[in-house]
C-alpha cells in the first residue's frame, strides 16, 4: 500500500515531535476556541446527516401550543390577568419549556460518547479546558433553541399572541441563552457523574415534566396551592418565563419594570437577569470537578 513513499518520507511523517514547548507556545484562549469550534462542528455535522431530532424539536412545541391552547379553549374570559387569551399566556411558557427540555437532553450524546468510548478521544487529548465540551454543547443547543423559539413566536403571532418589538425579541434571546447555558451545564454534569444512559434518562425523566408543572409555564402563581407557589418561585424556569410574559403583555417594558411577584418580593427585569446569571455561575462552578474527573 505504501510502495510509492520513500524511506525519507516515512521518517519525516512518522517521527516524533520532541518540541515539548508546543502547548506553552499556543495561547490557552486560542486553544479553547479551536477545540470548541471543532466539537461544535461535529455536532452540526451529525445534525445535518441525521436531522430527525431537529424536525421533532420543531414539531413538538407546535403541538404543545395547539394542545394546551385547546385544553383551556373554553376557559372563562378574563380568567388570566389583563384581558389576555390563554394563547398569549402560554407562548412564553412553551418557549422556555422547549429550550429547557432541549438543554436537559444535552448530556445524552456525551453519555453515549462515553459508553461507546468516543469520549476517551476527548479525555486523552490535551484540551485547554473540558469546558470546551460544555461550550460546544451550549452553542449547539442554543442554535436549536433559537430556531424553535422563532417557530413558536411566529406560530403564536398567528394564534393572536402578538409580536414583541425587536428589543423585546433580543431580551427573549438573552433569557433563552441564560437558561440554556445553565441547564446544559447541569445535564453535562450528570453525564459525567452518572454511571450510564439508563440513569441519565431516569434523571431527565424525573426533572423534566415536574419542573414544567412546578413553574408558571401553564398557569399563573395565583392559581396554585400555597406550597406549589413557593416551589414555583424557586424554579429557575419561572424566572425565565415571567420576564418574557411581561414583554409579551407590555410593549412599554423597561429594564426597571417589575416583571415578577413572588412570595418573597417583587423583582425587576435586571434582578431577574442577574438571578439567572447567578444560576449559571453556580452550576458551572459546581460541575467543574466532575468534568476533570477520571473515570474507572
Amino acid at each position: 500500500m505504501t510502495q510509492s513513499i520513500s524511506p525519507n518520507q516515512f521518517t519525516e511523517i512518522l517521527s516524533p515531535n520532541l518540541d515539548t514547548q508546543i502547548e506553552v507556545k499556543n495561547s490557552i484562549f486560542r486553544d479553547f476556541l479551536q477545540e470548541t469550534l471543532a466539537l461544535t462542528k461535529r455536532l452540526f455535522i451529525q445534525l445535518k446527516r441525521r436531522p430527525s431530532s431537529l424536525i421533532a424539536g420543531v414539531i413538538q412545541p407546535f403541538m404543545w401550543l395547539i394542545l394546551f391552547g385547546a385544553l383551556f379553549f373554553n376557559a372563562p374570559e378574563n380568567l388570566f390577568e389583563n384581558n389576555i387569551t390563554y394563547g398569549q399566556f402560554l407562548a412564553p411558557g412553551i418557549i422556555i419549556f422547549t429550550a429547557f427540555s432541549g438543554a436537559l437532553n444535552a448530556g445524552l450524546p456525551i453519555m453515549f460518547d462515553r459508553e461507546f468510548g468516543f469520549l476517551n478521544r476527548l479525555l486523552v487529548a490535551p484540551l485547554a479546558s473540558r469546558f470546551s465540551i460544555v461550550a460546544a454543547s451550549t452553542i449547539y443547543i442554543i442554535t436549536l433553541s433559537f430556531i424553535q423559539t422563532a417557530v413558536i413566536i411566529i406560530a403564536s403571532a398567528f394564534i393572536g399572541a402578538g409580536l414583541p418589538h425587536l428589543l423585546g425579541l433580543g431580551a427573549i434571546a438573552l433569557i433563552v441563552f441564560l437558561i440554556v447555558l445553565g441547564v446544559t451545564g447541569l445535564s453535562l454534569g450528570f453525564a459525567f457523574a452518572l454511571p450510564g444512559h439508563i440513569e441519565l434518562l431516569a434523571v431527565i425523566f424525573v426533572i423534566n415534566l415536574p419542573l414544567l408543572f412546578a413553574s408558571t409555564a401553564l398557569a399563573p402563581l395565583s392559581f396554585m396551592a400555597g406550597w406549589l407557589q413557593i416551589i414555583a418561585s424557586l424554579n429557575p424556569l419561572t424566572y425565565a418565563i415571567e420576564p418574557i410574559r411581561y414583554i409579551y403583555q407590555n410593549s412599554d417594558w423597561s429594564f426597571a419594570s417589575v416583571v415578577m411577584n413572588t412570595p418573597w418580593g417583587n423583582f425587576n427585569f435586571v434582578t431577574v437577569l442577574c438571578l439567572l446569571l447567578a444560576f449559571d455561575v453556580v452550576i458551572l462552578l459546581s460541575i467543574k470537578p466532575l468534568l476533570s474527573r477520571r473515570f474507572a
Partner: protein
Amino acid sequence: MSDVITLKNLQKSYGQVKALKNISFSVKTGEIFGLLGPNGAGKTTTIRCLTTLAQPDSGEILVGGVSAITQPKQVRQKLGYVAQEVAIDKVLTGRELLNLQASLYHLPLSLAKKRIDQLLNLLGLQEYSDRQTGTYSGGIRKRLDLAAGLLHQPQVLVLDEPSVGLDIESRTIVWDFLRQLKLAGTTVLITSHYLEEIDALADRLAIIDQGEVIAEGSPSSLKDRLGGDRITLKIREFANFEEAQKAKEKLSSLSFVEKIIINQTQGNSLNLIVTPKSNPISKIEQTLIENDLPMFSISQSRPSLDDVYLAATGKTLIDAEIEASNNRDLKAEKKQAMK
C-alpha cells in the same frame, strides 16, 4: 538509552477486585515495548492509568519525566492512544474525524491539513477518507485510528490490543506500520495477549498476570534465562496425576533433565527442561519403557514466551485465558442473578 515511560508500584482496585496489584516497568526511548498477559491481567487498566483516563490508587507514572498523575495535560500531549475498541463517530467521514482530532491537539490549520493528507496516504486510506466511518471494515477503522493517534507526532504511541479482531492481512499491515514507526524514532507501547505478536514486534516486554509483572526483558533474554530446550511429553492423552507424578520421578533422575513441571490443565502433560544439545528424546522413551509407562506424544522445541509464562505461573497463557474467561462469566452471571 533513557527511559521515556516509567511505571512504579502501580496499584488499582475496583471495589473488591484488585485489577493492578503491583505494576512496575519502564520503556526505553525508541523501542517497541510489549505488555503481554492473558485476559483480565490488567493490561487495559495499566494503559488507562498511563493515558490519564484512570487514576491509580497509588504508584508513580512518568512520561518523559513528567508525572501523569500531577501533570496530566503535559502527558496527554506526549502520548498517542489507540484504544482496544476502536471508537469512531460513525456519522463522520474519516477526514472529518481526523480534522476533529487535529483540533483537539491544537494543530495549526495548515499543518493539520498536511499531516492528515500524509497519514491518509501512508496508511492507504485516501479512497476511504470521504466516506462515513460507519461503512468501514475493521481493518480500515484500525488504520484510521492509527492515523488519528499519530497526527500530533507523539513521542510514544500506545496501542491496546491492536490486532484483536483483525484479519491476517490487516494485522500484517499494522505490524509493518509499527516497525516503520519505530524506525522513524517513535516509541511504541503495545499490549497483547498474542505471544506471536509480542515475539514478532517487541524489543522488550513485560509479562503481567493477575495485576503483577512476572517478567521483564527482551524476548531472547527471557527465553535464554529459562535455559535449555523444552520437551512436552504426554504419557496418555489424559493421564491421571499419580501416573504423571511417577513419570516425573523416574525422568528426574536423567542427567540432562533440569526441571519438570506437570501441567494439570493440559491432561497432566509433562513439561521438561533439558540441557541444550543433549539429544534427549530417545533416552526419555527408553526410561519410560523400562518403567512400564506409556507414551502418547513427545515434542521438543526452543523455549518460547509461553514457556516464560509457564515457568512463572505454572500454567500456559492459553489456559490462563480460558480460566479468566470462565471467571468473568461467573461474575457476570452473579451480577445478573442479583438484579
